[in-house]
């Protein structure tokens, strides 16, 4: 069985992407608070929803990255 080694650089990169997703989810929360005129306390009380939304964003980004990866791979094979 092959041993898979994930380099630290890759882990940091994934964490940075997830942090970006959390930030994006927080911004969505801020927007919804302003749009629906609810309380700022919701930034804390709906943290679980924010984190769930961040996970959804992370999954979407992963999907996009996969599509980009496969696209690049196909182009490389075509060129090579």
């Amino acid at each position, binding site marked *: 069985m092959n041993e898979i080694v994930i380099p630290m650089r890759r882990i940091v990169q994934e964490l940075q992407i997830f942090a970006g997703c959390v930030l994006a989810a927080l911004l*969505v*929360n801020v*927007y*919804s*608070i*302003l*749009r*629906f*005129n*609810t309380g700022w306390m*919701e930034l804390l*009380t*709906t943290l679980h*929803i*924010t984190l769930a*939304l961040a996970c959804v964003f992370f999954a979407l980004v992963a999907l996009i990255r996969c599509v980009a990866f496969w696209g690049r791979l196909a182009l490389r094979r075509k060129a090579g």
Partner: protein
Amino acid sequence: MDLDSPSLSSSGLESRADRREFLKRLAVLAGSSALIAELPWWSPLRVAPVAEAAADRVRLGLVGVGTRGNLHISHLLNTPGVEIAALCDDYDPHLQAGLARVKGAKGFSDFRRMLEMPDLDGVLIATPLHQHARMCLDAFSADKHVFCEKSLAYTIEECQAIADAHRGSKRVFQIGHQRMFSPAFLQALELVRNGAIGQITQIRAYWHRNGNWRNPVPDPSLERRLNWRLYREYSCGLMTELASHHMQVANWFLGAHPVACTGYGSINYWKDGREVYDNVNLIYRYANGTHAIYDSLISNKFYGMEVQVMGPKGTIEAEAGRLYAETPPPAPGIVQLINSLEHGFFDTVPIGGPSWVPDLKRDAKGTAITHEKSTDDGTAISLAAFANAIRLGVPIEGMMEQACRSGVSVLMGQAAMEQQREIAWPEGFRI
């Protein structure tokens, strides 16, 4: 005071020691509650239970060792500072079963003989309705404290006679309306007082069961004696045995007695020789224009029982312990955003839909008004209050008023159904 405090949760009342601890906590809480301070029947509970010394013990006699009487025995055996000194029942199997549970209690088949016991402090009356008045009056004459099961009496005149006998007496009187001691109902009352539902505009109560409401009878000759609830000679059936609880709550929450009542009742399903209605539907009118609507039947239990206290801002279901706001607080912004996106994606565009929305019941879950499910409906607390009141030697104010208001209300309802006309609150009735 937080009426919803875990200290007021009566879970764990299974032993005398548990109950002692519970009553100690209750005494502290009762002393600090503004709401409870307004309810005079809670005042005896501000005193913690005493030690178990014989001199401190309250000696009680219980008359009527049937279903309810046995429940009282269970509670009294666990109530600190209480001794069941005597049991009385004219049906010997019940009496013997009771005496087997209460070691050392004296047995009587005649209530008046029991009253002759000089060291008996008070009596609990858990007999058929038609005997309540005579026993209450005999007990007052014998200078005993009285706990009488609901409903107060069989006729309005008897209610008046009991109130008259008690007026000016230094004896403690308590009625078996345990919701007056139920933390869930206190919580509901506090919400009403705090304006959570606005002005009470209607109270709707119902009690539905599905069963013949009969006790097993070992011999046909005992039918009327053991199934007394089914015969008009002894009882007013659903009104006095069930409705009296919810009418007490309605009168209590509205702070008044009804001025008039109308309604219908019939025997439409259990046509088995019974004489009391198996379904009743009544409307009570109060002086301020509020109505209490009550119905009960024993051929369908889908809706169970409930007291719904309604106002422009919300509804309280006191039995279930839930509050339903008319305009619930909005969902968090982020949830609203997700919902609006969802609707944008998945909703169909109506071309020719209905021009009105049917006023169907909202599928609202409401919010709990009590966090913990109590194992006691208030009966344990009410018996502790009775014992403490006897020990303190102070009559419980307001108790006879509650007893008379509910007792007379259900008798008005019974008369309205039987006479098929509106019945007014009896003029000149004095509490």
